[in-house]
């Protein structure tokens, strides 16, 4: 009986003792400090497994730590939120660095603050504080140029239709599309089956409104999705489809088919995020082939504005796990990734450097640099500026299939937006 009591007390004390240490937030550890015996868990989407591979193996080699990568099934964000709701947390994961992204994961409660991190001062000032912050606290570390949305076009298709200058506004782009159709080339391609690509044209059409602060008005309830601003954007998009300027199999279109069609020249223009770049590169085989075939320009109603729409592949976050040792190791991993391991990481991924002192690798296709340069003339998309992002792609896909009218799309957007804002506890909702 006594021995049982002693055993129980010993067990109890070992459980209680470490918990009392986690109250203190650890300072930023040295990047290459030894971490033998420490295992960290990283959550990663299936399509992004290649991204952290090289930096993980070099970190493991240098410090002796072990990082276990857990694949999260598509669509990534939902399973992650579901797992966190059940109390399952990783040490580090990919996550969107936008305000709405960080709010949805309840950053204040779940994530470690990255304020005072050693790499922050090395980042390009123009990019440093644009994303990853909620209020004054930094929660996400940007690992690459944030996803930018614009028009990827096939150079050969443009040449065949006799288009010599790039469109500078929407009217010019529509005129170019009509010319392409006359030359027997499908002007645009959209993927209503995958659904998520359908949002980009409408978002590009809202570019000017985004620049003039329409999303702030939305957040303060001065504007609504049911206003003419949004309805006109959706109407213009639908008109393009009805005019026959989109692929005839739009209802069964997929991202994979979109990539192939653009590269082959069956389709002239695709409105997509910059993550289309790596997909095109993988299919083209090498940078030279890609650069010869594909070009890029930003587009909005009146100019060549680009939309910035960072997604989960653009940033990483560190979680509050209550285990001081692992939290320190996670911070060390992030510091290494953005510090000593940064150049090798860029080389491995052919990413563009966000730090002026670290040069971009020479293997980066000219197309990627062209896309990234759009950041200087960019404006945040719904995901970046609005309090919450309704399922715009679901409603637009329904509209393409004929089961929702334009007004119903707008109403559904507004209803869901209000619902999400209310759940967030946003003022005025």
């Amino acid at each position, binding site marked *: 009986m006594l021995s049982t009591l002693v055993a129980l007390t010993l067990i109890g004390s070992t459980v209680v003792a470490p918990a009392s240490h986690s109250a203190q937030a650890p300072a930023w550890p040295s990047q290459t400090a030894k971490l033998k015996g420490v295992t960290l868990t990283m959550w990663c989407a299936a399509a992004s497994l290649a991204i952290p591979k090289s930096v993980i193996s070099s970190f493991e080699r240098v410090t002796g730590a072990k990082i276990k990568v857990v694949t999260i099934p598509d669509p990534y964000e939902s399973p992650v939120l579901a797992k966190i709701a059940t109390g399952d947390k990783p040490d580090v994961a990919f996550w969107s660095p936008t305000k709405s992204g960080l709010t949805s994961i309840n950053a204040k409660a779940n994530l470690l603050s990255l304020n005072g991190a050693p790499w922050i001062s090395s980042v390009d000032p123009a990019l440093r504080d644009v994303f990853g912050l909620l209020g004054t606290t930094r929660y996400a570390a940007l690992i690459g140029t944030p996803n930018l949305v614009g028009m990827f076009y096939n150079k050969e298709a443009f040449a065949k239709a006799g288009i010599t200058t790039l469109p500078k506004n929407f009217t010019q782009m529509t005129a170019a599309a009509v010319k392409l159709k006359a030359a027997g080339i499908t002007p645009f391609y959209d993927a209503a089956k995958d659904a998520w690509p359908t949002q980009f044209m409408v978002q590009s059409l809202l570019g000017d409104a985004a620049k003039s602060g329409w999303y702030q008005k939305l957040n303060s309830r001065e504007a609504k999705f049911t206003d003419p601003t949004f309805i006109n954007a959706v109407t213009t998009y639908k008109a393009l489809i009805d005019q026959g300027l989109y692929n005839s199999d739009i209802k*069964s279109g997929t991202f994979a088919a979109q990539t192939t069609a653009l590269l082959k020249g069956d389709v002239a223009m695709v409105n997509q995020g910059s993550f289309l770049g790596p997909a095109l590169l993988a299919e083209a085989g090498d940078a030279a082939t890609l650069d010869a075939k594909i070009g890029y320009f930003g587009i909005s109603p009146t100019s060549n504005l680009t939309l910035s729409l960072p997604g989960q592949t653009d940033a990483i976050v560190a979680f509050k796990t209550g285990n001081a040792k692992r939290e320190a190791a996670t911070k060390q991993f992030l510091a290494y990734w953005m510090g000593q391991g940064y150049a090798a990481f860029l080389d491995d991924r052919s990413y563009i450097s966000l730090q002026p002192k670290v040069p971009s690798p020479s293997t980066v296709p000219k197309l990627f640099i062209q896309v990234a340069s759009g950041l200087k003339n960019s404006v945040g998309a719904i995901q970046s500026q609005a309090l919450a992002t309704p399922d715009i792609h679901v409603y637009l896909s329904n509209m393409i299939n004929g089961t929702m009218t334009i007004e119903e799309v707008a109403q559904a957007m507004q209803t869901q937006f209000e619902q999400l804002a209310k*759940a967030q506890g946003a003022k005025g909702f």
Partner: protein
Amino acid sequence: MNAGAKVKLLLKRPRINAASKAHSTHPIWFIVPAFFFLIIFFIVPTVLNFVYSFTDWSSFKTEVNFSGFSNFTQLFSSGNLVADLRITILYAVLVAVFQNLFGFALALLLERDTLLNRIARASFFIPVIMSALAVGYVFQAVLEPKGPVNSIFSFFAGRPVEIPWLYSTTWTIVVVSVIHAWKWMGLAMLIFLAGLKTIDSEVLEAARIDGASWFQTLRTIRFPLLAPAITFNVATSLLGSMNSFDIVQATTQGGPGGTTELLNIYIVRAFGQGLFAQATAMSLVLLVMVMVLAFPLIWSLRKREQIL
């Protein structure tokens, strides 16, 4: 001892009635372990499902507060829930019809215990134990506009045939319910086979002697006597498919245009947006719907069994 005394002795003997006999060999506390699991994995989640529907639980904050009926008023005013309920019930009815039709046909076809029939029965049971998600992905590939099925049609038609199996806003719901029925028809077949085998052979022989044809025997004798099997099959196929998710998610993701959006798909979407309380409220509505359908259905089928 005379007979009367013997009877009196028998009557005086304390009677061990059935209940106490049962108690001595099967004490009530034998059931405690099973009950324990039932409580933890079934009753507690169901109660929590009920409780959380009336809160504002979401991924945006850690506190959970009561919010009354606001989730339900919001759900029913949006129109989405009612539309999805309608689609789910339609799907369930189609599955019940197809699954039992196919299962019954297979049972009749493979009734005799030949080697070929035994192999066929096993083959038709394989889809039942396959992962539903895998079935969905296989059919998604097979029913592509330029996929194998259309290629076969094109071959026989001599011209390109591109039937949009999974892209019709009217008919895709029928296609996905056929896929679901295909997956589970082996189980229906098994139950019907068992039911057919329990029919007294003397009754069938009598019918044969009386000159009844195969079809007449089927219609007037075997089908009515299959009532218990039909009760089981119709109830499980109808009520089970209301909880369907995997096959539709893998093939159409609720499209095209939301015409195959089962309630579970909408629930997953709401959950993915971080609106946990709303998703829980929706699943409570589904639970109530299934119960509302289940009681009259099973009652009427059982009544039919008793009559027949």
